[in-house]
C-alpha cells in the first residue's frame, strides 16, 4: 500500500513536470493571465470596491474561461500514453493501473492548483492594488475561500477532461469533445436553458407580468451546470453564462463570497447546497474515471 502510494507520487511528479514545461500549457496560462489582468485592471479603474460588488465582471471571465484550462490539462492524460504505447511499457513495471491513474490525477490537480493560484492572485491582486482598498485578515480569508471555490469548480472540468480522454480514440478527438462540452455546459448554457424553458412553458420571459413559470423552470434547469453553483457561491447571481437570464428572485441574502456585509456563517448557511455540489461533482468524476480506466481495454 505504502509502495503503491509512493509510485503514484512519482507518476504525479512526472506528470506535473511534463505539464509545467510544455509550451502549449505555458501559452494557455499566459493568455489566461493576460485576459484576467486586463479585465481586473478595467474593473479596478472603474473604481468599484471588490468587497462591495466590484467583482462581477472578473468573476464572469474566470467562470467562463478557466474551465478551458481544466480541460486542456486533462484532455490528453490517458489517450496520449495509449497512443504512444507508453502505457503498455509503463504497465510492465511493477505499477498497477490504479496507481497510474491516481498519479495522473494527482499531478494534474497540482498543476491546476498552480494555475488557480496564479489566476486568483493576478485578478484579486490587480483589483486590490488599483483600487487601493485596505485588506485585513477577514478579507484575506475570503480571498482564500474564493481560491478554493475556483479550484473545485475547475477540478470538475479536469475530471470531465480526464474522463473524455479515457474514452477517446485520439488526442484531437478528446480535445474537440472537451471544447464541445465546455461550450455547451459553460459558455451558452444559460441561453440554451432559457430557450428550453420558453418553449416548454410557452411564456416569454420578457412579458414582465406573465413570466412566473418560465423563470421558475429557468432556475431549476440551471442547476445542471457547475457554472450555476460557482456563480451562486461567488457572486450570488444564478447565472454567469452568455445570453442567460439571471433574475434574482425572492428575498436574497448576501451577494456572494466577497460581500462583507454578511458573515461567512451566513454565507455558508445560504449557499451550502451549491458548495456541496461543487465539492461532490469532481469527486464523483474522478471515481468514475478510475473505475472505467481499470476495466478498459488499453491495447490500440
Amino acid at each position, binding site marked *: 500500500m505504502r509502495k503503491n502510494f509512493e509510485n503514484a507520487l512519482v507518476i504525479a511528479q512526472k506528470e506535473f513536470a511534463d505539464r509545467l514545461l510544455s509550451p502549449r500549457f505555458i501559452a494557455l496560462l499566459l493568455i489566461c493571465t493576460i485576459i484576467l489582468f486586463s479585465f481586473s485592471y478595467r474593473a479596478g479603474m472603474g473604481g468599484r470596491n471588490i468587497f462591495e460588488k466590484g467583482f462581477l465582471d472578473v468573476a464572469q471571465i474566470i467562470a467562463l474561461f478557466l474551465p478551458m484550462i481544466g480541460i486542456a490539462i486533462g484532455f490528453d492524460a490517458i489517450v496520449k500514453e495509449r497512443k504512444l504505447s507508453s502505457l503498455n511499457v509503463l504497465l510492465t513495471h511493477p505499477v498497477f493501473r490504479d496507481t497510474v491513474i491516481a498519479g495522473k490525477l494527482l499531478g494534474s490537480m497540482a498543476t491546476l492548483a498552480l494555475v488557480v493560484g496564479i489566476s486568483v492572485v493576478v485578478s484579486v491582486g490587480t483589483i486590490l492594488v488599483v483600487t487601493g482598498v485596505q485588506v485585513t485578515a477577514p478579507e484575506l480569508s475570503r480571498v482564500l475561500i474564493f481560491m478554493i471555490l475556483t479550484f473545485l469548480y475547475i477540478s470538475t472540468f479536469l475530471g470531465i477532461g480526464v474522463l473524455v480522454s479515457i474514452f477517446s480514440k485520439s488526442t484531437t478527438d478528446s480535445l474537440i469533445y472537451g471544447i464541445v462540452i465546455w461550450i455547451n455546459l459553460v459558455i451558452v448554457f444559460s441561453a440554451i436553458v432559457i430557450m428550453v424553458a420558453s418553449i416548454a412553458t410557452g411564456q416569454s420571459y*420578457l412579458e414582465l407580468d406573465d413570466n412566473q413559470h418560465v423563470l421558475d423552470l429557468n432556475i431549476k434547469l440551471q442547476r445542471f451546470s457547475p457554472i450555476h453553483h460557482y456563480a451562486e457561491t461567488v457572486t450570488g447571481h444564478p447565472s454567469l453564462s452568455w445570453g442567460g437570464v439571471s433574475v434574482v428572485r425572492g428575498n436574497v441574502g448576501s451577494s456572494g463570497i466577497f460581500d462583507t456585509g454578511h458573515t461567512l456563517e451566513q454565507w455558508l448557511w445560504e449557499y451550502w447546497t451549491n458548495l456541496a455540489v461543487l465539492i461532490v461533482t469532481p469527486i464523483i468524476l474522478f471515481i468514475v474515471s478510475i473505475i472505467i480506466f481499470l476495466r478498459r481495454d488499453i491495447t490500440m
Partner: protein
Amino acid sequence: MRRSFKNSIAIAQKEFADNLWSPVFLALLVTFTLIVFTFSYRNGLTAEHIGPQTGNTLLMDGFAGIVRTMGRFSPLIGIALGFDAVIKERTSGSLNVLLTHPVFRDNIILGKILGSMTTLALVIVISTTISAGMLLLVFAPKIPMPSR
C-alpha cells in the same frame, strides 16, 4: 490538367465523407446548430416584445441578431475542420502512401481544402435553415408587418 483536377475532386469527396461521418464533426455540428437556434429564438422573443423599431420587418431584426452569434462561434467550426487536415495524414503515414499514387502534392492540398469547404458550407446551410425556419414558423404569425 483535367486529370489532376479529377484527382482533386476524388480527394475532396473522400475528405467530405470522412468529415461527415466522424462523431467529432457531428458533435460540433449539433453544438453549432443548437447555439444558433438558441440565440435566434431569443432574438425572436425580443423582436416580438419590442415591436417594429427600425422600419425593418421584425423578422429581419430577428435575423440580424444571428449574425453576431455566427461571427462568434463559426470560426471554431472552421478551425476544427481544418486543423488536422494535413498533420493527420502525415503522422499516420498515409501521406507517403498517397504520394506513391499518381497524384501530386497540389492535388492533395486542393482536394483537402475543397472537401473541408464543402463541409463548412453544409454546416452553415443546415444551421441557418433550421434557425430561419424556426423564426418563420414560430414568430412570423404573431408579428405584424410594419406599415410602409
